[in-house]
């Protein structure tokens, strides 16, 4: 690694060193409380697959480059110099972690390990060593925002082609579109993913509730966040923010996608509209009596996986239980659940990157947790979790059906009694 690149990486590292981040880097006493909290360590007990094990790879750089004692007597803190070899450790730090923050809830000092992970991801971008697939997906999202006008007509046509499937779940009032797009003065902008599975159930539910809604032209997921690029994260979100402002909506509902929800809710600063997870929207409709669901339509034993970015990091936990109480008479909680739930093992970009061998190996504890419930249906509210849980279901022969919460609700919609 030449001096110019080292200087640039040092600059990127320094750009992350807020007071809080310095505290996170300096306060660790190596008590080890976080070690068994990581699903990867619990599945495969190696220190490198623990929160503190990963963070140390960044701390050792911090001591060498930003602390006098590290420069003068590096051996005291095992300080290390930025180097090509050490960047491999930085990569392992960033991409063996799903960003679930389960470790944070156990740390007695409140060290937010994701702030340390964000340094690792930024260094990888600076060195051109980040997973290219994540950068490609982020660039694609940005290009989509720049060319949206060129694809609006074909997207609208494709969405109209889904209307029959929406109506099969809930017939809208005469004269109302089953999937409205570009509705000025809609109350709610629903931001889906590319796939029809994230559009059809939500459309049926909102139509049943009589919601004045509009479908976004953009996909909710934010690959800028997965790759740890703050500028791209902002650009990707800005497309949706601009659309919401143009339509004058009061609320933006993010589909069942954990990262999309966390980014829009917590990372975009003050916005002129409310940001909610679609889980919150369904719970509200049930609470207000705007939709009814028949629990007899979900007769199998059901359990629920709290997506980390919606539950532990987003605070949306009891809303899911409200829905589940309406949805089934045979619900069994995962143990542990809510804030303490085990991560599925697919977050942080790992699903998009592939990494199936690691994902299966590092989530053995998740598979065991799910199997112990004896449930036949495993519901969740995040695309990443759904993909990972489906892979675990197959890999560990769990014999379950993995389902989105919105799909189960839309299949059980009934007219008011």
């Amino acid at each position, binding site marked *: 690694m030449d001096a110019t690149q080292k200087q640039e990486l040092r600059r990127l590292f320094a750009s992350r060193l807020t007071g809080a981040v310095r505290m996170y880097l300096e306060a660790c006493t190596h008590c080890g409380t976080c070690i068994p909290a990581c699903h990867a360590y619990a599945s495969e007990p190696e220190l490198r697959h623990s929160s503190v094990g990963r963070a140390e790879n960044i701390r050792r750089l911090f001591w060498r480059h930003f602390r006098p004692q590290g420069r003068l007597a590096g051996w005291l803190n095992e300080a290390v110099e930025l180097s090509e070899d050490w960047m491999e450790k930085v990569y392992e730090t960033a991409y063996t972690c799903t960003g679930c923050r389960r470790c944070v809830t156990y740390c007695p000092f409140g060290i937010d390990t994701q702030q340390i992970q964000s340094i690792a991801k930024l260094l990888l971008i600076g060195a051109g060593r980040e997973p290219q697939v994540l950068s*490609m997906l982020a660039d*694609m999202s940005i290009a*989509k925002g720049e060319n949206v006008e060129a694809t609006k007509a074909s997207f609208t046509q494709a969405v109209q*082609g889904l209307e029959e499937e929406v109506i099969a779940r809930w017939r809208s009032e005469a004269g109302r579109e089953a999937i409205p797009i570009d509705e000025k003065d809609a109350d709610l902008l629903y931001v889906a993913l590319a*796939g*029809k599975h994230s559009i059809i159930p939500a459309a049926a539910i909102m139509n049943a509730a009589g919601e004045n809604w509009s479908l976004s032209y953009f996909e909710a997921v934010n690959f800028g966040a997965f790759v740890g690029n703050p500028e791209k994260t902002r650009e990707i979100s800005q497309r949706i923010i601009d659309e919401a402002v143009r339509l004058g909506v009061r609320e933006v509902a993010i589909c069942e*996608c954990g990262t999309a929800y966390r980014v829009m809710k917590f990372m975009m600063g003050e916005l002129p509209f409310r940001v909610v997870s679609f889980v919150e929207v369904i719970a509200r409709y049930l609470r207000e009596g705007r939709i009814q669901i028949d629990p007899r339509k979900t007769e199998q034993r059901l359990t629920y996986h709290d997506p980390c970015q919606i539950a532990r990091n987003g605070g949306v936990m009891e809303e899911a239980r409200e829905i589940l109480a309406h949805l089934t008479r045979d619900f069994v909680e995962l143990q542990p659940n809510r804030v303490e739930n085990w991560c599925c093992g697919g977050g942080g970009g790992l699903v998009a990157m592939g990494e199936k061998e690691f994902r299966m190996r590092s989530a053995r504890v998740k598979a065991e947790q799910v199997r112990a419930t004896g449930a036949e249906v495993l519901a969740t509210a995040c695309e990443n979790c759904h993909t990972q849980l489906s892979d675990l279901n197959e890999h560990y022969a769990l014999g379950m059906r993995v389902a989105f919460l919105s799909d189960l609700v839309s299949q059980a919609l009934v007219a008011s009694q």
Partner: protein
Amino acid sequence: MGDYSIAKTLDYKGLPCPMPVVKISQDIGSVDVGEVIEVLTTDPGSLADFPAWAKTSGNEILETQQDEGTIHIFVRRVK
């Protein structure tokens, strides 16, 4: 359909996000430069995702067609 022959047809129907774009970025290497892949998908978002991917990757979307719930995207490998 335009005046070109299809070297390969790939079925991406029902894949979770973001797999259609991830797969085309991998599968495009399986044909020679100048050849055309037909992608089948059911994702409305692919109609915007694929042109954006083509722009950033330097490939070309020749046309898109929609029939009975299936979207056909014709991709020419340029690089």
